[in-house]
């Protein structure tokens, strides 16, 4: 057995569970607690979550991030795609172009973030906000978002995954615009498509909830491992596989219901590890740029507090953080980077999620998302 769990971690976990009770009673967002706890316990904090433990927990990270990538494909069936707005296409193009431009050096992430934020704003702001809420927030209000909303997130994810190929080519061939980039993209699409087609067969034959859920638990791990073997983007592979399932599967409602039902523990696990991976600025030169972006998020969050009661403030502020999710997810396996490389963009999602969580908590009434009768009462 490895020496993975210092006694201090056991005590800290127990204390964390005890602290969560008054936190919940005060109706504070639990995602924020998970992130803060991860940061305090992580290698850059108290050091109780050791790097070797983080390495051992890598499958959980792959599972939770892959789970969200699968969920992002929920509305990528042909019927929904036909109703897509021009703004979503703009978002995808913006994401691809800006990150493709910036990918050779992560130091250029700041302009890409600004451009991608503009692209998000150019797209439909309501849809982008709903997409974000649906993707990261387990609040029942967010779960009732229109199906069309997740198109924006999916488009951004797809665009960023294309940029993954460009980044890989930039490392291997010195220039992003080589034929290697195209090969990466084609391999990613083919691998995801094949995974989706093959996986649809056992999902069709699965009997009941237990077997379906067990199959779904294995899917992100298989997809992640397959992408690792092929050197392609794991999240794009899983997203494409999810899109195939959304179109091909007779029981797609069952599959996506199960994915949505277990989104909260997956998100919490991811956010906790995200907090633990918070790097110090001096640990990696790239993280200086990421910290800059995080600082922007903090300023934006402060503004959000100011405009919490204002619909105009919410509608303009929230879509900016759309970029946080795909960047974080994709950067988990960013080519050429070890732990610091994929740890840095975690700050984005941590800050973004923290902000959304706070905003949803502060919102005086459900945003634009209707609360359906029979669902649990909203918080706040």
């Amino acid at each position, binding site marked *: *057995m*490895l*020496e*993975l*769990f210092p006694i201090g*971690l*056991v005590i800290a*976990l*127990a204390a*964390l*569970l*005890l602290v*969560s*009770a008054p936190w*919940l*009673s005060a109706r504070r967002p*639990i995602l924020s607690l998970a992130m803060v706890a991860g940061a305090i316990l992580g290698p850059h904090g108290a050091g109780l979550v050791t790097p070797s433990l983080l390495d*051992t*927990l*890598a*499958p959980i990270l*792959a599972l939770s991030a892959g789970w969200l990538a699968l969920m992002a494909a929920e509305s990528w069936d042909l019927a929904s795609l036909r109703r897509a707005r021009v703004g979503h296409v703009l978002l995808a193009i913006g994401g691809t172009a800006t990150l493709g431009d910036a990918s050779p050096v992560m130091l250029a992430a700041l302009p890409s973030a600004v451009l991608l934020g503009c692209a998000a704003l150019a797209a439909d702001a309501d849809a982008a906000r709903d997409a974000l809420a649906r993707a990261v927030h*387990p609040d*029942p209000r967010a779960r009732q978002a229109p199906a069309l909303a997740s198109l924006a997130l999916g488009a951004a994810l797809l665009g960023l995954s294309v940029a993954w190929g460009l980044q890989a080519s930039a490392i291997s061939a010195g220039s992003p615009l080589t034929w290697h980039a195209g090969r990466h993209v084609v391999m990613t699409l083919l691998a995801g498509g094949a995974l989706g087609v093959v996986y649809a067969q*056992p999902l069709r*034959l*699965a*009997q*009941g*909830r*237990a*077997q379906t*859920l*067990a*199959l779904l*638990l*294995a*899917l*992100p*791990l*298989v*997809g*992640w*491992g*397959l992408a*690792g*073997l092929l050197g392609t983007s794991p999240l794009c592979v899983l997203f494409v596989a999810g899109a195939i399932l959304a179109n091909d599967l007779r029981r797609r409602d*069952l599959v996506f*219901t199960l994915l949505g*039902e*277990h*989104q*909260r*523990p997956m998100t*919490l*696990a991811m956010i906790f590890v995200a907090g633990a991976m918070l790097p110090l600025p001096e640990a990696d030169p790239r993280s200086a740029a990421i910290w800059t972006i995080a600082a922007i998020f903090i300023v934006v969050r402060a503004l959000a507090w100011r405009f919490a009661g204002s619909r105009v403030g919410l509608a303009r502020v929230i879509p900016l953080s759309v970029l946080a999710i795909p960047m974080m997810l994709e950067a988990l396996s960013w080519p050429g980077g070890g732990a610091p490389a994929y740890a840095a963009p975690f700050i984005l999602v941590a800050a973004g999620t923290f902000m959304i969580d706070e905003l949803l908590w502060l919102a005086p009434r459900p945003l634009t998302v209707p609360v359906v009768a029979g669902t*649990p009462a909203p918080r706040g």
Partner: protein
Amino acid sequence: MTIQPVLWLGLVGLAGCLGAMACRLLRLPGSAGALLGGLALRMAAGWWDPAFAPSPAADLMALATAVFVCFALGCCLELRLLREQGSRILGLALTQALLIIVLVGAAGFALGMGRALAIALGAAAVAGSPAAAAAVAFEMRARGAATQRLFALSAASLVMSFACGYLISSSWTPVMAGLWALGGGVAAGLVLLIPLSRLETRGSILACAGAGVLLVTAAAWDAIQPWAVACLAAIVAGFVCGALSARREALREALRDAAAPGAILLFALWGAAASPAVLKIGLPAALAILASRTAALAAASFLHVSAPGAREGIALLPMGAAPSGVLAASVLLSQIAGLAGSRWWLAGSGDTAAGDDPDAWRARMR
């Protein structure tokens, strides 16, 4: 070519699911199929790369999944049953432990072991597998007196195994580990009870239970018998939460539904952890241990219950240990046979709904 830990875990899960689906077609428990699926994958990996060994991440995942399944089992245990039948269950568990030590020890003696080694073998075979009982019961959505007895007996056999630890090591350390597991389980249960009693939605309950699983796993990782300590502590913690929580039905429903697929993955991981070479060597001894253990359990149930009640003993066949080391073949064989026996016993007990539609749960969500 080495296999990455993430890909390996994914393939193990997939193989387990396929095995479970195949076994359900044959009306066998899915967990047995998952075990065989994992074993088949491990044999294929060994053929692909003779030096292949699973990563430590697989060990940790298996332990954490077992803790989660045991926590769900403990949560589903009814305090009322323990009040009414606690002494009888303890008596039966004690009889089972004594007969297992005698009969399995005799089998070991017949196989050429020394007296001390044979007694140690018998003592090591006492522990039952609560995870196996939970896997079958949750898969069949079984609820009732027979299910409760099965849960309680498998948990009691785990307690007995700590008491028998003195016979194996001639020291009080295993007994102290058992007491530590009981006390730690109560403490973990009380800690978990505070946030769990405030949660309503399924996702939140599972997230909190996941944190509890990490807590118990971390606490037991360096213990002298990590698997037994972690499983017993998880059962006790789950029992404390299930007995004291005001929202125990929501808690039980959420955990039961999540533990069923968790058990499939657990048995797939166990199957994939077994080394084919060790299995081949230990097969004759495993058959002898299995036969003597079956006889001991059936005899104990016959003495305490009745002749038809001897079937209950078959349901308790799975041995409670990870299938590695010298007892790997015995553990695997007992689990495969015991999972089928548990399904047989529960199906005959009337605890399962006849013609249960596996997708009926969806109606409640609409």
